[in-house]
């Protein structure tokens, strides 16, 4: 493995020096050089990419003919379903589901001889055609990766990689050829709206903060990504931390802040490591600290670690937590932009919003606002997960339809099952039914149909997902995560959860549905922060679109999706049972009796004792002959 000549890191004291340093980095890089990138995102980690990386290291070390080949572990490429992913540059050969044992042949065949290993290429699910490069895979084709695109190419632990793709150019432009007001104007022109959930226009927020009285101001990056089913902020911070940092520095300059904080979620250790490393490197080069690039502007960023509370991602709660208190929200009539962290004017945006800033500054607000819809500009990263073929992170222009995301990019529903709903917006969002699949996705449209954009989680549900169970799931989540300050939220979520439990366990009554709606209304109206304010959405949206499923549970004590355990019955079909005994072995309560058939002896078909059955489903999972029926 060739390791490039170490360039000595030294403080850069002008834009010219930064440009010179960038050219120095680029001159050392040969565009024809073979670079093997292995996705090191968390999805690929779960699929075992570390073993693939080790295998590449070993092969490259052992080989004598490895001149000019370098290995790069990058951030998330997005196509998590097919991990571990390997891309070989400059030809951009895209190998998926790579195992450590494939590595020696990738090296000897593809890298040294240029032969393609067909079996590692992505196979088009319809045509069966093998696809050679990442950009031709249908999953990537409809995407527009202006924020997320560099993730797959740069090593997030090296500032040189970020500089090589043009990093910190936007900062130079902002510091040396724009006035703070012009920057704000550009962000306003772009109509950048907060990507964390609220969708508040960032430019207006920045302007109010700039105008607010006080000489000490703060900027905060909210990386407490708590919505279950959303992980784009994690992947950005892990895969391209400098883009977030650059956005924050530009924002701080525009607002007049000298200090910034990144509040990182407790559950994201790698994101924490990578952003800390990025801050150190930026300080080392003088892109953070006193007198950045000799512009006269001082700014530094510090890290604050979250403690694992969902409500900690709420802006006023987050500010309380940074100051060393518990993360409890406060009344919203005092805006953070006037009195935030330590009662100073504070601008808080989330990871993805900050990452949009360098792009807007560099390409201009006019360019940016061409993308998207009337009220929502630019792109949005969604995490497309759940019951969909191509799970992963997708960046699409605002205004794309749900159908395009789920079917064209996501490849539809697995196992030929039927689509039922897509849940967006996390616990504050709602479930959108099939009839609304052609809805253009933007902030306002999603709110209109009773859901919301949220931070971009998009959980696809099929016919085997029970909507009452989903509502119960979210209410369980919210009752645990309600901080307890407002009675309406603390008690409202609890009572709604109780009612939903009654329904899923077969004790529901029809009048519970009206009660749920009423409770939902009170919870939303009487709570201080957005957690309580949007808490009833999962219940109200499922009641709105899937009322008949609730009624089925209540009137016929039946769960059509076969999820609600108390309403299920497992039965072994004697005519299908092969008497293998696998189910009896798997049963944790010895509820299954029968006799195994062997070569010598006749068997007795197995049967389930309903009294003993705890409906854990282990027998169903273990049966290879579909002999177990769920009613």
């Amino acid at each position: 493995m060739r390791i490039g000549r170490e360039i000595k890191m030294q403080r850069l004291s002008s834009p010219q020096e930064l440009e010179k340093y960038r050219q120095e980095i680029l001159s050392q890089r040969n565009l024809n050089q073979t670079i093997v990138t292995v996705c090191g995102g968390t999805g690929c980690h779960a699929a075992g990419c570390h073993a693939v990386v080790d295998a590449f290291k070993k092969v490259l070390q052992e080989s004598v003919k490895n001149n000019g080949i370098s290995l790069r572990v990058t951030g998330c490429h997005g196509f998590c379903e097919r991990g571990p992913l390997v891309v070989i540059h400059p030809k951009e050969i895209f190998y998926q589901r790579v195992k450590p044992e494939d590595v020696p042949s990738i090296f000897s065949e593809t890298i040294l001889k240029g032969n393609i290993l067909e079996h590692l290429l992505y196979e088009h699910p319809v045509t069966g055609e093998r696809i050679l490069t990442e950009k031709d895979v249908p999953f990537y084709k409809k995407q527009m990766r202006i924020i997320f695109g560099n993730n797959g190419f740069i090593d997030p632990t090296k500032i040189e990689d970020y500089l090589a793709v043009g990093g910190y150019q936007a900062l130079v432009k902002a510091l040396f050829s724009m006035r703070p007001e012009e920057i704000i104007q550009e962000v306003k022109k772009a109509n950048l709206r907060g990507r964390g959930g609220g969708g508040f226009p960032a430019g207006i927020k920045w302007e109010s903060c700039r105008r607010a009285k006080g000489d000490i101001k703060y900027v905060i990056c909210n990386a407490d990504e708590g919505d279950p089913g959303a992980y784009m902020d994690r992947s950005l911070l892990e895969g391209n931390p400098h883009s977030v940092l650059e956005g924050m520095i530009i924002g701080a300059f525009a607002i007049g802040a000298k200090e910034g904080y990144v509040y990182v979620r407790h559950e994201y250790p790698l994101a924490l490591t990578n952003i800390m490393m990025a801050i150190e490197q930026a300080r080392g080069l003088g892109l953070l600290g006193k007198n950045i690039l000799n512009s006269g502007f001082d700014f530094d960023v510090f890290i604050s670690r979250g403690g694992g509370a969902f409500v900690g991602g709420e802006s006023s709660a987050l500010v309380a937590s940074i100051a060393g208190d518990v993360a409890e929200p406060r009344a919203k009539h005092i805006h953070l932009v006037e009195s935030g962290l330590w009662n100073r004017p504070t601008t808080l945006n989330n990871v993805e919003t900050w990452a949009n800033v360098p792009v807007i500054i560099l390409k201009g607000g006019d360019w940016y606002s061409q993308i998207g819809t009337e009220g929502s500009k630019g792109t949005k990263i969604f995490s497309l997960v759940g019951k969909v073929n191509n799970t992963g992170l997708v960046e699409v222009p605002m205004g794309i339809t749900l159908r395009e995301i789920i079917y064209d990019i996501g490849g539809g529903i697995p196992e030929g099952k039927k689509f039922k709903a897509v849940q967006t917006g996390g616990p504050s969002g709602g479930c959108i039914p099939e009839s609304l699949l052609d809805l253009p996705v933007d902030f306002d449209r999603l709110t209109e149909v009773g859901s919301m954009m949220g931070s971009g989680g998009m959980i696809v549900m099929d016919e085997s997902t029970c909507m009452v169970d989903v509502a119960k799931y979210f209410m369980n989540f919210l009752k645990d995560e309600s901080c307890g300050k407002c009675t309406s939220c603390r008690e409202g979520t609890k009572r709604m959860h109780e009612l939903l439990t009654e329904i899923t366990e077969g004790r529901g009554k029809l009048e519970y549905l009206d009660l749920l709606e009423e409770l939902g209304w009170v919870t939303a109206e009487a709570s201080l922060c957005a957690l309580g304010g949007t808490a009833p959405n999962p219940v109200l949206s499922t009641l709105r679109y899937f009322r008949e499923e609730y009624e089925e549970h209540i009137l016929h004590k039946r769960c059509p999706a076969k999820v609600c355990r108390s309403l299920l019955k497992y039965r072994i079909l004697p005519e299908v049972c092969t008497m293998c005994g696998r189910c009896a072995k798997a049963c944790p309560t010895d509820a299954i009796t029968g006799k195994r058939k062997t070569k010598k002896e006749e068997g007795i078909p197995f049967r389930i004792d309903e009294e003993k059955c705890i409906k854990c489903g282990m027998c169903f999972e273990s049966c290879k002959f579909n002999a177990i029926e769920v009613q």
Partner: protein
Amino acid sequence: MTHSEIDTIIERHGKKESAILAILQDIQTREKYLSKEALEYVGEKLRIPLTKLYRIATFFRAFSLMPRGRHEICVCMGTACHVRGAQRVLDQIQLELGIRPGETTKDLNFTLETVNCLGVCAAGPVVAIDGQYFGKMSPTKVEGTLKRFYENRKGDKDAKA
């Protein structure tokens, strides 16, 4: 944890109120829980009432007031994992270990926890053991996965108790 070790942690983050969370997190990482002694010492050093420290320690999920097992099992209960059957995986782990979320096995080998989302949604259902991710879990995979973390394989049955 000795007082001087706590002193080092306090020094690293500074003797200020805003550093409480970071200090407690470092102690939690080292000790895997916050002992009464540690909390009292931090309170004394930072001149913060013990009640406030307990308020923080009990508010955030990251902290534990009880000693933890050698291995921490974290079952993701995020929405993506939920619709793919996370509850069944959790049920199976509970059955296997005989403990509920938040509890530790008697032999101090495992602590079971749930988490709202690990951010590995594409690979769901996900279970993390000591930070190592196991994706696409199912109830039938539970036993085999846990086995890797038993101290002594012969003692499997005892370990479960």
